[in-house]
């Protein structure tokens, strides 16, 4: 479904990605784990076209999207929930969800999807006319995922959904991600620092270090890999 071939991305004068290649098949949950600053978020931003790769190729469903504008990429069905959730603080919950459906025009379908996300997160329905900035961290994460779902993603990119959340909330979020994957058949690319968590959820995983992919295997194998155990699982 998505094929990343040897991309190199720069932040100003710093090369953040060196020859990163990743493949994601339809319906999978793929995870990318690695330390802070390893280039995980950059990889996502390159896919979304916000930080365009200078070399290499990104192919989505047979189409080259390497140098496409971010809005075109969203149109194709690649939606990202970025790190830190980035809720629009002064828009209401409902308006935040509207923004997710920015590129869609079919009012009925949108209505149906709103009902769907409200069923996933009943709390959001209660708070729909509250400003996004007044929600708690966990609620914001729920809203962020819901907002992305409103765009009808084929491929959902999630950047550190567990960051800064209480363990109990993290669990809820992970369950929902799984649910989205199975119920909506949405392919999921999950970037996580919490490797333990991510590898439990994912089918396959990639390990990233200083801008390079160093390992790639099934989640199960990775969890048993000694190097991974030592560096990321804290065992």
């Amino acid at each position: 479904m998505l094929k990343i071939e040897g991309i190199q991305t720069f932040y100003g004068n710093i090369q953040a990605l060196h020859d990163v290649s990743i493949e994601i098949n339809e319906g999978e949950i793929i995870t990318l784990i690695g330390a802070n600053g390893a280039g995980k978020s950059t990889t996502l931003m390159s896919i979304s076209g916000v930080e365009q790769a200078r070399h290499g190729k990104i192919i989505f469903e047979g189409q080259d999207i390497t140098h496409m504008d971010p809005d075109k990429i969203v149109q194709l069905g690649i939606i990202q929930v970025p790190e830190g959730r980035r809720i629009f603080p002064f828009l209401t919950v409902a308006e935040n969800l509207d923004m997710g459906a920015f590129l869609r025009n079919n009012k009925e379908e949108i209505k149906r999807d709103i009902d769907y996300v409200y069923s996933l997160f009943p709390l959001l329905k209660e708070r729909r006319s509250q400003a996004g900035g007044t929600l708690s961290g966990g609620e914001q994460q729920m809203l962020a995922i819901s907002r992305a779902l409103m765009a009808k993603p084929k491929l959902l990119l999630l950047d550190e959904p567990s960051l800064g959340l209480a363990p109990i909330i993290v669990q809820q979020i992970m369950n929902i991600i799984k649910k989205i994957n199975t119920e909506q058949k949405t392919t999921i690319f999950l970037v996580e620092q919490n490797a333990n968590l991510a590898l439990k959820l994912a089918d396959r995983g990639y390990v990233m270090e200083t801008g390079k992919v160093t390992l790639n295997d099934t989640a199960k194998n990775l969890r048993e890999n000694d190097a991974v155990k030592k560096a990321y699982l804290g065992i």
Partner: protein
Amino acid sequence: MDLQYFFELFVGGLTKGSIYALIALGYTMVYGIIKLINFAHGEIYMIGAFTALIIASALSFTGMNPVLIFLISTILAIIFSASYGVTMEKIAYKPLRGSQRLSGLISAIGMSMFLQNYVLLAQTSDFLPFPNLIPEFKFLEPVKSLISPSGFIILVTTAIVMILLTYLIKFTKTGKAMRATSQDPKMSQLLGINISKVITMTFIIGSSTAALGGVLISTHIGQLNFYIGFITGIKAFVAAVLGGIGSIPGAVLGSFVLAWTESFGTGYISSDYEDVFAFLFLIIILIFRPSGILGRPENKKV
């Protein structure tokens, strides 16, 4: 005190406030989106007025109906000003995205100087009379001493523009995209909003209201030259900050408050210190409300 006199000053402030508001809207919208004090906004206003003057004069030789001339030249002034606004953004501000904020400010100052001198050289340094294209109508006595016809038209236009803008920002897709972009441009991108388009749109709307203001104000005062943008621009900027920069109702409220301060200050004290009242009032307001009257309090999250 004399109530009639008070009322006169009040209405005078209302007209002046509407004038400020038309220009302050553009300031505040551009600031809201790209966090830039667009120093050259006043110049867009001036170019709008000049374009209308040029087109109206050129058309007046064809012997067209003055109302038609007024409409055509206003519309063309808006179109051209919007194009200037967009071009200016592409040249002077877009390449600076992501640089320190002050660089943008200096670039805007440079743009302002450039545009002023561009008009000065291409046209003239003299004051030119602005053709009076609005059909004259006379108010009856009690109103007559309160407000002039052109002042009244400005008042009405500002009200209409305000309502349209509020509708646009609150309820349309473009408006929502603008609000989202002003809060978090990167996230907006990730949701499929084309930021460049939103910024362009903002400049188009801001420049259009400025041009409309330029035409109406020039009709009101009957003259213009290449320098009219600067002082009015500064005043409108003060109004925008007073109301809380980035907030559209704030810009309008700030404009009225500023105009009333000036009007009553002049009326009851002295016009020598008209601007001093305006600035002192601004300083006092900002001391108690550091983000302006309707501004959002700065996020002091730790």
